């Protein structure tokens, strides 16, 4: 199977530690993660808030490129890009009128032959947990992780068809294969506030406060995420949480790829562990060589 990596804008900007660690993991596992040539923005929230056609067409354009480059699957790391791409594919497959309009815009047939996979699915289904466990060099034994999936990875279930929408366990299984102890906690699919971070930061602060509180109560040492915006909210807003509520957590929010990379033997710099506001390195010191 031939795959192309769709990084999306975040992974070339604020979330470049996600990109860095994803590449480090795939390189160590021998998985090809070549970027899709000529990719464009998925449109994200602004596009689908303003034009349904634009938001589908932007994703269709990227699928079109993947198809032209003879790729079977587009692998995505960002939860929002993943959601947009899979939604576009779903909508084109189920709405003939929309598909016709998209084809008119693209001046090409709708590219429904290309699959959209999340990086977690690549590790789980394509690579396999047993194979992953066999490559672990520094098992994360003793590290308690709260796996945080947020909204976009799993919802809406009939479109995303990713794991159990109310109780996903994909990330838990991947990190357990790396030796970590994943905690059972109630926040795994709650919202982090997403892009209200800028317009209504008070809401984000209260949501992040609750999430961190729940993760801490469950005994987590770190929160693992699969979305650059979730990571930013959980990480950057911790100082605001402390300022506004007096609650101090010092709970690092790391990408699951950073933890997998750690287990596979990658170093802190290679994984971009220096990029977050709440430094995870003291917590992870025991596994950093």
């Amino acid at each position, binding site marked *: 199977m031939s795959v192309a990596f769709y990084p999306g804008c975040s992974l070339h900007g604020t979330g470049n530690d996600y990109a860095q660690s994803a590449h480090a993991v795939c390189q160590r596992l021998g998985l090809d993660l070549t970027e899709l040539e000529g990719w464009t923005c998925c449109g994200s929230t602004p596009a689908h808030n303003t034009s349904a056609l634009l938001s589908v067409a932007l994703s269709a354009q990227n699928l079109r490129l993947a198809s032209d480059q003879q790729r079977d699957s587009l692998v995505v790391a960002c939860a929002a890009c993943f959601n947009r791409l899979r939604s576009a594919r779903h909508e084109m497959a189920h709405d003939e009128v929309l598909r016709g309009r998209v084809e008119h815009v693209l001046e090409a047939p709708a590219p429904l032959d290309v699959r959209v996979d999340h990086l977690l699915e690549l590790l789980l289904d394509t690579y396999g947990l047993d194979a992953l466990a066999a490559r672990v060099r520094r098992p994360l034994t003793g590290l308690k992780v709260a796996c945080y999936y947020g909204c976009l990875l799993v919802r809406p*279930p009939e479109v995303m068809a990713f794991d*159990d929408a*109310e*109780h996903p366990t994909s990330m838990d299984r991947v990190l357990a294969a790396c030796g970590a102890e994943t905690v*059972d906690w*109630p926040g795994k699919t709650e919202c982090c506030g997403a892009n209200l971070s800028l317009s209504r930061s008070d809401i984000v602060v209260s949501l992040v406060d609750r999430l961190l509180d*729940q993760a801490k109560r469950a005994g987590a040492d770190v929160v693992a995420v699969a979305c650059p915006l979730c990571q930013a909210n959980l990480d950057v807003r911790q100082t605001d949480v402390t300022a506004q509520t007096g609650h101090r957590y010092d709970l690092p929010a790391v990408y699951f790829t950073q933890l997998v990379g750690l287990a596979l033997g990658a170093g802190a710099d290679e994984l971009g562990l220096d990029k977050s506001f709440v430094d995870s390195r003291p917590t992870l010191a025991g596994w950093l060589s």
Partner: protein
Amino acid sequence: MARIGVFICHCGENIARNVDVDRVAEAAAQIPGVAHAESYRYMCSDPGQRKIREAIVAQGLTGIVVAACSPHMHENTFQNAVEGAGLNRYLCEMANLREHCSWVHSDREEATSKALELIAIMVEKVKRNQPLAPIRVPMTKRALVIGGGIAGIQAALDIANAGRDVVLVEREPSIGGHMAQLSETFPTLDCSQCIMTPRMVEVKNHPRIQLYTYAEVEAVDGYVGNFTVTIRRRARSVDESKCTGCGACTQRCPQKKIASEFDAGMGQRPAIFIPFAQAVPNLPVIDRTRCTMFLKGKCGLCAKACPAGCIDYEQTDTLVTEEVGAIVMATGFDVQPPTLYPEYGSDPDIINGLQFERLLSASGPTAGEPRRPSNGEVPRSVVFVACAGSRDPARGVPYCSSICCMYTAKHALLYKHKVHDGQAYVFYMDIRAAGKNYDAFVHRVIAEEGAQYLRGRVSRIYRDGDQLVVRGADTLSGTALTIRADLVVLATAVTPRPGSDALAQKLSVPYDAFGFASEAHPKLRPVETNTAGVFLAGTCQAPRDIPDTVAQAGGCAAKVLALFSADQLEREPVVSRVNEATCVACFDCERVCPFHAPEHRELRNRAGDLLRVVSHINEGVCAGCGLCVVTCRSHSIDLAGFSDEQTFAEIGALAPF
């Protein structure tokens, strides 16, 4: 010379909407052999039937075609009408203009011409019909009831009280079923045990009821009126004839911590146990999967404790055979465990409705006081979640479990009666309280008992310290709710009893995708099945409450008694017959017949010398399926009323069109 009458029914608008019935009547009158054709709005009604009878007499008709609905619906009706006018009932045929034509076609022109074709086919058939006489076979006027819950008990008592013998088979060590587990019943708050246990005793003492507990139906052979049933009596490991039910063995058993099935896991029992104090029969049974004697080969404490020497570790299962004429299936239901939704977690303080019944029951492990399974404290706040699996096509079952709205209201009420300062919350989708006095009961629970009803779903339940946190939505106020609860009771989905599908197969009773047994007709034959002589009572057919179950069980009893009211069983004469002159005795018919109807018949001359052996169909057993007819290589078998000659004539009728 044939004089056929054709009667075309409008079926209100069902047929007339898509078929030009008047034009069909005109055209049908032109078919050779048709002496009379007319249409009427409701042919099955009294005036409609009168039209048929009068035409037979006035016009001297020799055969009738009623072009109306499916023969499944009204063939019997019209056969009776024809018979009333002195014509043999098997000279009446139906052309199905509803299910096979008007309901499935939208083009009126095409449907009209197809309707005429269907009539022409039946005219050719009925021209060649022969008068047939019903077959009479002897029957065993004794009923088998499978399942000893309230449905089976009611059916068994009703049949036995009418003077017929009943064999009642129950899989568990005691009869009583789920109703014996309940605390109080909605909407009258009758104590379930008080109305149930006397009926159980009645069953045990009834001279006409043969009771087998801890037994299962192993095999069913035969047909209506003449079933042979093999019953496996599982080894109790206790001599029933000597045991007095003193309970010394159960007290001596060193195993005391086995989850009690009767208490739905809320209480514990030993390895040798009487399921509950009021059990019928009041005899212990050894759970061989947990008994130390069976697992490790030593212990024997119960045998030493027994003053009557009843404990028998060597006892084996026994098979008994019973002859019966009718069977009532009453195998009941289960409720799903409270673990369907992983986001609710699995916490000892999250239980299902049946478990809460045991906590409310005076015979339960807490003597009727609701207590938290986690720490034994009285819960100060209880959240009830209705539809916790029902009406959820994506993750649970799509159907409504029918009883949850009412028992959840009852739970909230009983909880408030026992914990006056406690708060009950009920999450619901909508309230389905359609029975007599049900709606008033729910309003009483809300208005007078102060249960807080919240319309919405619960998204997540998690433990926070000593309490559970329930997060959900109130869709009426549009707010997200967080409620701290000591106990959560999930109204989980009602499902058929495990193994009821295998039993249904033994009985040749169809069942739906969820395992509920299918009735013959949802409205007109709700307790019958498509297998003659097999009837359905209670929740093995669909989720339902106690009043409906009792009524349906009574309906089963009436059907069984009606069957037994004739001296002999009358059977449809649509059976296969062998032409002995041409039969080559290959007995392929014997191999294909699912009913074991073909027999070997010896043909002898007057001197008694054996000439040859031919096949002979036992008319009492033949179901008229026709498998032997198509299998017979020498074309020696014909099915009465469906002969080859008739079939070819029907096909030929299509030629002019």
